[in-house]
């Protein structure tokens, strides 16, 4: 088996150049149909209750799927990943660390990329070729995103799905591209949404599974999925190093906010949902987000996979009401 997992978005170009099947372990965990069991199994093995559900879920997914090698992002994402690597190494799993430098230093990032290339035995020419291949798919994902906010033809959840899946292209750029092509054909015959409220979703992808449909029942549609969009390398930058320096997610919150502010304006957003994962350091960044954005913000916290609970529904409905009164 030549599957290689990773804990958050990494230069996918390298894995594809090396002929590996990329597996975003987050997607594997959340879409496998038994995410809650995976977390419970990890807790039973000793993972603390007050640790992020994604870390426990990834652990469970790796063990269950039999993946033998993974790239673990140790800087620029959750620092719990380091301990996750250590625990997984006890199971004989090969872990390759990858660090996004906090200051976006190009030399430091180049070193990290080349270290990873050396591990997988690929050169720049091969990596750039797979970059071109991926750009063809990413371009189509950008079109899905445009159809979401500009044409109103794509739901918030579909937008989420295609962008979030772009981190590993569902394991195969070819079949994923076919799926995208067929989706794009289907959207051309749709009637545009008539939204009352246009929302932005910022923060890590939700662990909650019915947020988007719940919002759309209330005529509120998410037309900007911040992090998911970042996974699709949205700027079309030809140079790989610059592509992953422009990618905002692993760097500081102010860099992310610069992108967020532009998109909020461009996409005519009425309100922002800031999703934070329980026990995540990004909960602290909510303070910065609230101070820096002028639109109304609802901060939602998710812990374990599953549908929205009654309390969160109340908060969302009240938020939509508040926005409805302002519009």
């Amino acid at each position, binding site marked *: 088996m030549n599957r290689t997992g990773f804990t958050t978005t990494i230069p996918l170009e390298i894995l594809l150049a090396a002929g590996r099947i990329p597996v975003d372990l987050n997607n594997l965990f959340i879409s496998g149909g038994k995410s809650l069991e995976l977390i419970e199994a990890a807790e039973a093995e000793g993972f603390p209750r007050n640790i992020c559900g994604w870390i426990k879920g990834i652990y469970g997914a790796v063990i269950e799927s039999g993946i033998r090698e993974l790239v673990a992002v140790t800087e620029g994402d959750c620092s719990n990943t380091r301990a996750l690597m250590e625990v997984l190494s006890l199971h004989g799993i090969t872990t390759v660390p990858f660090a996004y430098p906090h200051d976006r230093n190009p030399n430091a990032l180049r070193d990290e990329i080349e270290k990873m290339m050396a591990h997988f035995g690929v050169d720049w020419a091969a990596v750039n070729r797979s970059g071109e291949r991926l750009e063809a798919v990413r371009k189509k994902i950008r079109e899905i995103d445009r159809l979401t906010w500009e044409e109103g033809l794509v739901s918030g959840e579909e937008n989420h799905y295609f962008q979030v899946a772009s981190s590993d292209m569902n394991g195969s750029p070819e079949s994923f591209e076919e799926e995208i092509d067929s989706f794009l054909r289907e959207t051309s015959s749709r009637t545009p949404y008539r939204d009352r409220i246009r929302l932005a979703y910022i923060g890590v992808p939700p662990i909650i599974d019915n947020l988007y449909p719940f919002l759309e029942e209330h005529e509120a549609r998410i037309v900007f999925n911040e992090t998911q969009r970042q996974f699709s390398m949205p700027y079309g930058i030809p140079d790989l190093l610059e592509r992953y320096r422009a990618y905002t997610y692993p760097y500081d919150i102010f860099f992310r906010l610069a992108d967020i502010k532009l998109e909020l304006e461009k996409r005519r957003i009425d309100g922002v949902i800031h999703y934070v994962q*329980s026990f995540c350091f990004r909960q602290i960044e909510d303070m910065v987000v609230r101070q820096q954005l002028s639109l109304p913000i609802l901060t939602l916290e998710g812990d374990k996979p599953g549908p929205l609970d*009654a*309390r969160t*529904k*109340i908060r969302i409905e009240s938020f939509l009401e*508040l926005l409805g009164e302002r519009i």
Partner: protein
Amino acid sequence: MRIGIDLGSRKVKFALVHEGLVVRLESFDTLSFYKRFGRMEGDDLIFDLPATGLFTAAELAACSIVATGYGRNTLNLKGVKVISEIRAHVTGAFFQTGFRDFTLLDMGGQDTKVALVRNGRLQDFVMNDKCAASSGRYLENMAAILEVELSELSSHWEDPVRLDATCGIFGESELIGQILRGHSVARLCAGVNQTLVKRVIPMLKRFPSDMIVLTGGVALDTALVRLLEVEGFSVTVPDSPQHNGAIGCAVID
């Protein structure tokens, strides 16, 4: 004529309002109310309001009903208009206080809501999440541990014993430890009230206003009001804080 119903986690509250005047306020324990007067019909929750004896047949015939509360998202209420809790509480606060600019602090059986109101409009709000250790239920538990009535617990604010547990259940054993140290019941009660203040201050500081309107059952805790004042907040408790949401339902446009 309208009936407002607030389905809380501990009490179901009713307000009957006619021509801008509150005619009657009632309440039931939530569990016994659901058991005695509620039933499911498909996905709809039906309340047998005539059987409660709270309203006359003529009143029920003449009234429209607006409801809010915890139950409303898991259950459809047949024949009842449902509004969000935050809207109900803010509307109730307008009606009861006449203020247009304030921070609403609603402390119920499980929920603590803080809402910023400017120029008579809701600007933003926060709610407790994951933890209900700043709630009425917490006060009830602590009163039970101290073997005092809620009215006794709510009367002490001076020289509070310091209590630090994050969890409302661990807080019980912490309190027991302090009892063994021989602190007076008055100081322990004050300590419990002080823990509520510590838990709501981060939410209140998020939405600073010259005036806090305090509602919900916990607003009956006069020591809490005093301790908030000690922290520098000006606090108004409307005449019927516990029925504020039900009143809001009964008067909303």
